């Protein structure tokens, strides 16, 4: 197109053919890598027989059975008993009765999902609050051994979770924190605070000190300047950091499976335990997985500009 207008830049610009080849390969990769996710989504809308059909069914009659099974527990009943019941109240009633079953009650999925929400948001709130204070201190003040402290903070996140879980398990048992939301919030806060400090330090480093200094000359105290000047300036960075913390806590499995079993269990250890009659209930697993992954898709899109920062602890800013 504008190749004729030779600028200094166009010397290194790829040729249209190279671009087309690159686009083809990248798009092909993207589509192939989406197959497992598309399959999860589709399986959620299949009936159990359709989900295990061979060859795998690409075209099928969509059903809500997976979602009904995800949220309910069911018991098998005789046809006579089901006949004696009144007309089905909900679509799930209808689907369940076709399989000679009746809904016995709600399943544990909703409470587990709720636990995930509470623990993720609770730990994110604390991690970001602690993180922003530390990050500000590391960014603005001369702290003895700052590099060593920062390394110490980061290294706590690198530890193998199973190795950390052994003493935490013993400690929580003594303190009565086993299988409590509070215990999980504390633990995830500790894991996330290191990411929060590193990420937020990068964001705060980018805010010119002159802003606070001007405010302080105008009579603000340092604390005032921090709350009234620095925090609003860092809002985007704080939001991005919070989303990264949410994602970690939302996805975490190792601590959750070892330290929670009932009351405080989150969704990741629960989803693999969804079983139907005679094996895994794959449509219900697909439905549960879909609902669990949707928030993550939203987060990915929201974060796309900050992803690189997040995964390199703020070191690479693009």
């Amino acid at each position, binding site marked *: 197109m504008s190749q004729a207008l030779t600028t200094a830049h166009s010397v290194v610009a790829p040729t249209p053919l190279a671009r087309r080849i690159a686009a083809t390969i990248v798009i092909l990769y993207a589509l192939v890598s989406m197959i497992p996710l598309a399959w999860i989504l589709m399986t959620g809308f299949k009936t159990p027989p359709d989900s295990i059909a061979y060859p795998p069914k690409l075209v099928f009659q969509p059903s809500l059975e997976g979602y009904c099974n995800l949220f309910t527990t069911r018991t098998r009943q005789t046809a006579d008993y089901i006949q004696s019941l009144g007309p089905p109240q909900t679509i799930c009633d209808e689907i369940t009765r076709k399989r000679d079953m009746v809904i016995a009650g709600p399943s544990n999925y909703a409470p587990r999902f709720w636990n995930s929400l509470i623990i993720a948001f609770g730990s994110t709130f604390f991690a970001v609050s602690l993180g922003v204070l530390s990050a500000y201190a590391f960014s603005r003040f001369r702290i003895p051994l700052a590099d060593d402290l920062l390394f110490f903070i980061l290294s706590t996140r690198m530890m193998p*979770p199973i190795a950390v879980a052994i003493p935490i398990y013993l400690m929580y048992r003594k303190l009565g924190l086993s299988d409590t939301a509070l215990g999980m919030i504390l633990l995830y806060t500790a894991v996330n605070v290191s990411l929060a400090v590193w990420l937020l330090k990068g964001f705060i480093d980018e805010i010119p000190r002159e802003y606070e200094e001007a405010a302080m000359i105008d009579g603000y105290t340092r604390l005032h300047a921090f709350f009234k000047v620095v925090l609003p300036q860092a809002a985007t960075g704080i939001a991005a950091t919070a989303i990264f913390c949410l994602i970690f806590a939302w*996805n975490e499995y190792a601590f959750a499976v070892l330290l929670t079993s009932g009351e405080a269990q989150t969704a990741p250890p629960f989803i693999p335990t969804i079983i139907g009659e005679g094996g895994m209930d794959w449509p219900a697993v697909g439905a549960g997985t879909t609902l669990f992954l949707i928030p993550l898709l939203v987060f990915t899109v929201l974060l796309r500009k900050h992803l690189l920062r997040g995964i390199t602890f703020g070191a690479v800013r693009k």
Partner: protein
Amino acid sequence: MSMATTEDGTAGRIADQAARGTTPAIARRIRGLSDKAIAWLFIAPTILLLLAINIFPLIWTIYLSFTNYQANRPNRPITHVGTKWYQDILSSPDVWAAMQATAHFVFWTILLQTLIGFGLAYLIDRKFRGHAFWTTIILIPMMLSPAVVGNFWKFLYQPQMGLFNYIVSFFTGIEPSSFEMLGSVSLSPWSIIIVDTWMWTPYVMLICLAGLRSIPDYIYEAAEVDRASPLRQFWSITLPMALPFIMLAVLFRGIENFKMFDMVNLLTGGGPGSTTEVASITLKREAFEKWRTGYSSAFAIILFVAVFGLANIYVKALNRVKQR
């Protein structure tokens, strides 16, 4: 890091000058709480939390690693066993088998992810139309929960009706029920490598992309003027200049996969037998199934030391990239 210190110095001077230029009363108001007090007030909660949740338990683990304590028998008298567990671990064939399984997993995942990730980044850097959109699509797998996704891959790998076997048979003609990705000794190590590569190639790709974008255009222009061939440009400019970023990605994936637990636990649980029993799975079996708390504490300490060493190198790499 050194940059930060000099900045700090100048800022301190400016603040001092500002303070000196005003009357002492106002100067005190500018300072309010002394900066030093604020600094420690701001850092203390984080450090205290980490001491309580990380360091105290770590010290406890070190203590336990020299005892015969068993978490499922808390009332049994504790005896000290010295370095017995450490000797047992370092001479145990099971541990070495686990280390081998881990090394196999780490080596192949890193190799595949680096090759595919760098390749993709290189292609995306051709800046074709819509590359930003497709980059976001490619990034999705790495944001998902390894446990939940690993669990679902179990379904894809089913030999009778799984999609993976079907696709393989579609392209190769091999009977889809003739091989079991999760059940066979020779294939199961590859089943976890495939899932990990699917999930984390985007991670390597994203960091490599940042590396490629950090190379200024004028270097290529100079090479073009010198009539360097595209291949020569790739080997002499692109690769060496992106290398620190590639190293960063490799190190981080190395650390993460060295301690890999969730995806493998759900996909194979270490099986069949112990073919995919990576270090974290062994540790979980010893600590939470056999309840050999002392032994597993010693094993945990050994893993700690290894990760700590790797993390040290990682932070150095981070700082090197940061200076770019």
